[in-house]
């Protein structure tokens, strides 16, 4: 009962504080960004700029080959701006890339200068051989340069390379779940950082505010336990986190996510993060003193984001950072056919870890009440 009184009091108090409205406001800002700024699919296709300085017959043959790969089956006449000039080009859009065929070497140079992208000049030499001249920008990796050398060196066995590349097996890692579009793919990031991890910082702010007012000391001289006080704070933060997460998720995802799993995971991961925040604050007198430690935590927690958006960079040590598990779990929760076993195991792990840290934080708080 005392826990309920403390919780309802904390809820009333937080509704009177700025932090509460900042959190809700931030959720709305993120929602607006997702709705109106982030597209459903980022234009991730590579752009290639070519000038075919070739005999008409070869040119037509090359263009015919391109048309066969074009998604529409026809080339678009487009205009490209570069160096304050406009140049005409034909655009072929394949599944992997957008290929612009320029009409002059001057246009090729202008695009290379203004866009800072590699461009290709194809011509026929005196031995009637096609020569590819790549104008690189200097930032290309050695690997790419070697790949181009190998690709155009027939002695290296062009046929072997082509045969090898045609037979590469592409496997989807998540066989059972439908992939998310780019907009939906952003949601786990927002849920992780605005939902779960913000708990860590918000609870620190609440606690330092109370420490400053001496509230914890007053609470300690009552027949209610300090853990009631701490848990009621965590409760309020979890409620806020559920509210902000729903603000972001509902309008974008509709009824696609597994909401019971989402709420369960927000509770467990929020409990873990808030307990960690409590433990952290128990070592410091005020937020200024705690800032260094908090900064380190922020940097560590951000790292899995890199892995999330760059799947090729996924070292084992990143996987043990809690935000990595949170990102993956939220992704599964909002995906059709997501791996709920992973989410449940992660929830259980966060609950147990959170409980252990909470017990430690409670012990620390009791020990440092007079600070």
């Amino acid at each position: 009962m005392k826990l309920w009184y403390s919780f309802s009091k904390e809820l009333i108090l937080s509704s009177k504080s700025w932090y509460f409205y900042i959190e809700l406001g931030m959720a709305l800002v993120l929602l607006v960004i997702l709705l109106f700024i982030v597209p459903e699919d980022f234009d991730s296709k590579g752009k290639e700029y070519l000038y075919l300085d070739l005999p008409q017959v070869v040119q037509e043959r090359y263009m015919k080959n391109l048309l066969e790969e074009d998604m529409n089956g026809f080339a678009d006449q487009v205009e490209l701006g570069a160096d304050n000039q406009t140049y005409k080009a034909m655009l072929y859009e394949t599944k992997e890339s957008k290929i612009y065929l320029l009409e002059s070497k001057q246009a090729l140079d202008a695009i290379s200068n203004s866009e800072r992208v590699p461009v290709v000049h194809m011509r026929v030499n005196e031995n009637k051989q096609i020569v590819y001249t790549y104008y690189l920008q200097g930032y290309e990796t050695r690997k790419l340069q070697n790949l181009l050398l190998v690709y155009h060196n027939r002695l290296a066995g062009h046929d072997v390379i082509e045969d090898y590349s045609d037979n590469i097996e592409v496997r989807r890692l998540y066989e059972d779940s439908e992939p998310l579009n780019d907009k939906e793919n952003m949601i786990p990031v927002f849920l992780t950082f605005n939902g779960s991890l913000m708990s860590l910082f918000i609870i620190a702010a609440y606690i330092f505010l109370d420490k400053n007012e001496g509230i914890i000391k007053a609470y300690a001289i009552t027949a209610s336990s300090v853990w009631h006080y701490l848990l009621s704070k965590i409760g309020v933060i979890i409620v806020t986190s559920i509210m902000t997460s729903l603000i972001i998720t509902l309008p974008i995802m509709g009824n696609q996510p597994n909401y019971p799993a989402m709420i369960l995971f927000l509770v467990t991961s929020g409990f873990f993060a808030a307990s960690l925040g409590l433990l952290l604050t128990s070592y410091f007198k005020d937020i200024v003193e705690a800032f260094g430690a908090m900064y380190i935590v922020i940097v560590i927690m951000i790292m899995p984001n890199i892995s999330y958006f760059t799947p090729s960079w996924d070292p084992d040590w990143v996987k043990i950072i809690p935000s990595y598990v949170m990102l993956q779990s939220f992704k599964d929760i909002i995906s059709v056919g997501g791996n709920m076993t992973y989410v449940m195991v992660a929830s259980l792990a966060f609950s147990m870890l959170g409980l252990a840290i909470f017990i430690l934080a409670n012990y620390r708080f009791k020990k440092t009440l007079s600070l």
Partner: protein
Amino acid sequence: MIKVKNLYHSYNNDENYAVNDVNFEIEKGEIFGFLGPSGAGKSTTQNILVGLLQLQKGEVEVAGYDVKHIKDKMFNKIGMSFEQSNVYSKMSGIENLEFYRKLFDVKTRDPKELIKLVGLDGKENIKAGNYSKGMKHRLTFARSMINNPELWFLDEPTTGLDPSIAANIKDIIKQENEKGATVFLTTHNMYIADELCNRVAFIVDGKIRLIDSPKALKLKYGEKLVEMEYFKDGELIKDHFSTVIESEKARIIEVIKNYDIQTMHTKEATLEEIFIKVTGRGLV
């Protein structure tokens, strides 16, 4: 009500003790003054007694509970008024008291009655954050009474209050004591201690120098004096004379006979003077 035996406390867990071998006992119904200058170890001792600081070394029993293994139930019997006001600034005075009363398992007092008792009636619905320093202090004081404490810890209860409110607070302390509350009063104000306490302890550098009643201390350490102001050859003279030493008694009679007396007071030693005499230290 309180038993303290060989109490030590070091903030750095070394031999540099903030509280050094402190021993005392407080009987039920007593007002016990814990007096000393800033940094003497008063607050450290009090914080150990109420569990805000962990007991490191020694034996402490408070309201029948061993402080080494504090139980939440112990706080049903305890009230504490802090020197620094610590109320929820975003809640009104009455909301603060209403909330705290729910945290006890015993019959609590009516918050409105307490608000009235400390002179905050009419201001109970204002947010505590908008209270003056004195009002916050009175609210903190009122909160410490919410559970009808058997043992009442008061840390500088009249500091920063104007004289009329301070007098009101002193009256409340007396009334509660008459009703049976045991009071542990921590202060460096010797006048309030003199007025309220049955016994006082002088603590300096973490050690208790003496424990006795103010009356006994005055008898033991005080000098019986008469302080006089009189005109002599047109000049105002201030002087004091012992009422025990024969030669000084004769001089009192001489002054009364021969000069124009302006003021004349018998003067007892104050607790502050005795404190300085005993400890060799001031109270600041």
